[in-house]
């Protein structure tokens, strides 16, 4: 497709100016004036030539002999009529020429339209990728409500962290028991600029940190176990396909950089990080035993919470 488009562009490189000139001649006032000027010049030269020939013929007979005024008028009108008759007699040829000229215009327009079509197709693909990247959401974790004791105001839950390498929740959840029933799931959130997200170069990052509730202040909350044996947060585990444009080793070295961004705001801004803060989505309606609540990170920024769909 790319090669065909290039060939068409190359052909159109010389067809387009010719086409533009033809259109200029036949569709603009200046063009009509130019054509009229050519016709007048053609008639002037034709008549002048006939008069000159007749004058030379007279001079050949006698040096003092000149064509009379009436003779010159006769030659003028006869040449004028002859020129028009000549044009009329050559109409089929002229029509053929016009056909070719407008064929060039048509061909050039067709090539331009095809070129626009191919370029639009590319733009659509780009925009689709942008929409896809912006519209993406990634699961952070799932909270399974194990028990809600409204009498003693205690909630028991299990936190399942999502591992993108496994493409599933980790099998061993963290069990939590906390006072209260409005459970705040606190995370560190790092949002990148739209331009970084649109291109698919970066994904917004989230690191679960703590759980607290309407009864328990953040400082008294429960720390979440969110890292693997190497200390890498599960949320950063990615399948090879999910590691955009870099190999796995480079990806993990990038994680170290991210850690640096947390403490170096200037560097973070240069890398396209637009915000770094803590966010805690929480389920405000009455929670019930057996409910599953999923935390998502949105690529447009921030976290959202949804009840897990069950069959």
């Amino acid at each position, binding site marked *: 497709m790319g090669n065909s488009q290039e060939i068409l562009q190359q052909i159109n490189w010389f067809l387009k100016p010719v086409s533009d000139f033809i259109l200029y001649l036949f569709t603009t006032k200046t063009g009509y004036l130019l054509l009229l000027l050519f016709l007048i010049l053609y008639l002037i030269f034709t008549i002048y030539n006939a008069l000159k020939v007749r004058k030379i013929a007279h001079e050949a007979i006698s040096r003092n002999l000149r064509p009379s005024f009436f003779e010159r008028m006769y030659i003028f009108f006869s040449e004028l009529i002859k020129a028009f008759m000549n044009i009329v007699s050559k109409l089929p040829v002229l029509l053929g020429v016009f056909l*070719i000229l407008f064929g060039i215009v048509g061909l050039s327009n067709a090539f331009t339209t*095809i070129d*626009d079509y191919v370029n639009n197709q590319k733009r659509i693909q780009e*925009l689709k990728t942008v929409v896809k990247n912006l519209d993406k959401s990634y699961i952070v974790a799932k909270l399974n409500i194990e028990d809600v004791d409204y009498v003693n105001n205690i909630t028991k839950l299990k936190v399942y962290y999502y591992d993108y390498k496994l493409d599933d929740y980790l099998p061993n959840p963290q069990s939590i028991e906390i006072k209260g029933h409005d459970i705040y799931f606190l995370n560190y959130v790092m949002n990148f600029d739209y331009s970084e997200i649109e291109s698919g170069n970066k994904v917004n990052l989230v690191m679960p940190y703590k759980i607290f509730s*309407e009864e328990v202040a953040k400082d008294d909350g429960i720390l979440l176990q969110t890292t693997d044996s190497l200390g890498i947060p599960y949320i950063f585990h990615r399948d090879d396909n999910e590691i955009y444009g870099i190999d796995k080793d480079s990806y993990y070295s990038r994680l170290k950089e991210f850690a640096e961004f947390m403490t170096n705001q200037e560097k973070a801004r240069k890398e396209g990080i637009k915000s*770094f803060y803590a966010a805690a989505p929480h389920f*405000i309606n009455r929670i019930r035993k057996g409910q599953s609540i999923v935390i998502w990170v*949105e690529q447009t*920024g921030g976290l959202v919470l949804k009840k897990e769909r069950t069959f």
Partner: protein
Amino acid sequence: MPKNSILQTNYLTMKGKILIGIVIIGILAAGAYYGFGYLTKQQDKKIAKLEDKINFLKEETIPLRFKILEKDTAQIKFIVKFYDQDSVEFNTDTLTLQGQELSFDFDVVKIKKGLSIAFPTKIFTNKIPAKKGIILFKYYDDHGFPQTMSTNGADTSYVRLMTELFTKIKTGNTEDIKGIYGSMVQDIAKLNEFQVNHIYKIVIHSKGGIEVSEDL
């Protein structure tokens, strides 16, 4: 047949072939022009639709901004300002809370596919549990209508929907609001704290995400 006649016939046949060739090229060019022209117009509509979708995904509203006035190991003093959907400031207050990290809590409601709105509910800190935080409804309760959602050109159904949602949220009767959830944002002590005399904004994204960042 005389040689001249044969040559003339061949010449005419060749002219005919050239003419047919030109006509075919012309028809093909016209077909390509109109065919691809039609497809290009369809593509333009698709492009406009995708660009609208991108703009919609990037849509943000800022219901409040705040500035830290004083901060020490015990408490934070800050000024908070409220804005409507047209970015017009309509209320402000100066508050002091025990703690070092400031938390802004919202109720997020999905009002249609892909569009969520957020109501500021309370402010608390790392030392104060959410239950004991400062309730924010009084700052934007305009005779039952949430002023943070006020916008020019709002119709009656919009006003009714917002008032109804706000009433339920204020009274805690949110059980029948499908998909409602809370969303709190705060700074991170030692890593990325809210700085004294810096202005911060809270951004609500169309998909329901909430972000807090410095208002540069």
